[in-house]
């Protein structure tokens, strides 16, 4: 049994401008110890997917369809106490902005200890001891000072380390990371990526890493799923994705990204803008921006076509073994 199995997940929000389909039929699964990058630009549904895995979407004005099975249990059918247990012990999260995710009126030590008391029933002294161990684990240089500090008193990189310590407090099996390095400076991002990769290996964690940054995905993931307009459009082992992007959107993204040594070679942008999620076209959502789109693309939604072993793309014009 896979650690996580997401089947035909859909998330709709009722808004003033109509029903917004943020996620439309997303399916994937994750084995223990595997790192999956959910890659996509703003509005692609990557963060909404992540929240649905935790069952974090409020019932009001939100409709969640499909199944999210964590170790065989459907997150959306659990009652709130069992869901809370799941979040504490099996699945845990690191968010993008540690300053808003941490509570400003408690010290880092209190916040880590709180997690341990809630989920593990540690007493005060045991929680303090374990909190210090956790800060050592995430390589905070002076853990005692960090424990006594409030979030605003430490640097952005330290805050993100503290967030990771809280996420790891209950020894989860699955870590959900939502753009955890996006708000950081590049030299600090390198440190946090390296730390996450090191911890993942040492602790055998499964990780879903939501990012908009191809480079970050290349640094951390075993596998990547590229999202566009609420759907996965391509999924492949990470090396394969960079070597042979098969979906025109993935290919477009690679050509539009400025790389080192790009100078003198023009960028090839993707024309236009992502579609309005309240009025999605019937066929392929990328068709209006796609250089190879033809009539069928505007009428029928393509299903996944195999490209190579473990590599699929949702495009009518994908041929096995080659790019579209």
């Amino acid at each position: 049994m896979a650690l996580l199995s997401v089947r035909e997940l859909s998330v709709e929000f009722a808004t003033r401008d109509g029903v917004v389909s943020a996620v439309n039929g997303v399916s994937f699964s994750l084995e223990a110890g595997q790192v999956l990058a959910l890659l996509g630009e703003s509005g692609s549904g990557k963060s909404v997917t992540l929240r649905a895995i935790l069952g974090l979407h409020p019932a009001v004005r939100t409709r969640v369809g499909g199944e999210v099975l964590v170790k065989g249990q459907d997150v959306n059918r659990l009652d709130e106490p069992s869901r809370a247990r799941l979040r504490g012990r099996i699945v845990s999260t690191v968010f993008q902005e540690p300053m808003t995710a941490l509570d400003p009126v408690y010290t880092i030590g209190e916040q880590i200890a709180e997690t341990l008391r809630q989920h593990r029933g540690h007493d005060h002294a045991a929680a303090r001891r374990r909190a210090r161990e956790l800060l050592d684990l995430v390589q905070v240089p002076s853990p005692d000072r960090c424990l006594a500090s409030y979030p605003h008193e430490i640097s952005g990189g330290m805050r993100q380390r503290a967030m990771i310590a809280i996420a790891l407090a209950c020894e989860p099996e699955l870590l959900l990371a939502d753009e955890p390095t996006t708000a950081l400076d590049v030299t600090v991002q390198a440190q946090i990526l390296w730390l996450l990769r090191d911890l993942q290996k040492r602790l055998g964690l499964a990780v879903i890493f939501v990012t908009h940054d191809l480079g970050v995905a290349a640094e951390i993931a075993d596998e990547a799923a590229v999202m566009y307009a609420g759907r996965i459009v391509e999924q492949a082992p990470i090396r394969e994705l960079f070597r042979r992007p098969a979906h025109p959107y993935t290919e477009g993204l690679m050509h539009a990204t400025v790389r080192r040594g790009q100078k003198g070679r023009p960028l090839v942008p993707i024309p236009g803008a992502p579609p309005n999620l309240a009025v999605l076209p019937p066929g392929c959502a990328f068709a209006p921006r796609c250089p190879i789109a033809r009539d069928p693309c505007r009428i029928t939604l393509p299903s996944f076509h195999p490209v190579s072993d473990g590599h699929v793309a949702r495009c009518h014009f994908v041929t096995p073994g080659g790019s579209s």
Partner: protein
Amino acid sequence: MSADNAMESRNNRDPRVSADAPLLEARGLRKHFPLRGGVLQRTYAWVRAVDDVSFDVYPAETLGIVGESGCGKSTLARLILRLIEADAGTVRFDGQDVRGAAPPQMKRLRRDMQLVFQDPYASLNPRLTIEDAVAFSLLVHGTRAAEARERARALLGRVGLDPRLYGRRYAHELSGGQRQRVNIARALVLDPKLLVLDEPVSALDKSVQAQVLNLLADLKAERALTYVFISHDLNVIEYVSGRVMVMYLGEVVETGTADALAQAPKHPYTQALFASAPSMDPDRRMDRPPIAGDPPNPIDPPSGCRFRTRCAFAMEQCAQAPPALRPVGPGHEAACYLFS
């Protein structure tokens, strides 16, 4: 294409052998912000945002300024345009003293130097249609309304927003990329010579970022513009710039051509910055982080070389006095005792 090549070669030439006078000259710029507190609002500390920064920008080149948060790059942009007053130093634009300019002269200077901000939404007036937003500065500078509107519409068309479709819309009805196009049109409507671009593509998705970078390159070639391009993204800076200035905690640590910096960065900080950028290649992942720690707080920067607390090569003298910028190659300078 030939115009592009000409631009490229001007971009990459060694500025010291150029016959051109600089369009912009900054000397010894300094800006410290007071931090006040208590009932009497006494100053208890100073944020040393920009300290003794000097540089030249030559006509038709792009000077890239790169650095992490708190390095002073955005403060520097505002000092150049005199949106805030410097504590010390001089800025000369086209031979004229910007810091000493009286209000009428300053208004004339502002026609020639314009700024594009990072957040394309916050920098547009939500109550103006985008046509009116672009025409606004023309009206301020005395153009008749009909003509101002005509020119605004033409420019909107040039930046890729059909004025018949978009002219009467408001900023909130546009996407991030479209808003940034409006900001670029607004900055260009007075036909400036210099555009200071402060993180102009950082808030945009990658697919849109490329559109805006290409637009900026085309406009520069068409209008013989000079850019000061500020970004935290080293790949973008290397791509757009002829010369690059690397800043750390309010000071310049290295300057040189984009090529020289990319191929042989000298300052340990520049090296770390390049090495920290993700490789875009799953087979060439980082073995370990290039440097430890966060950039320190600019309120109380380290003595001597401000980078020494994170530097693998730090020596005793680094703590004593700040190293000066010294030549390390043609048109290439670094502020590090390793090269003195």
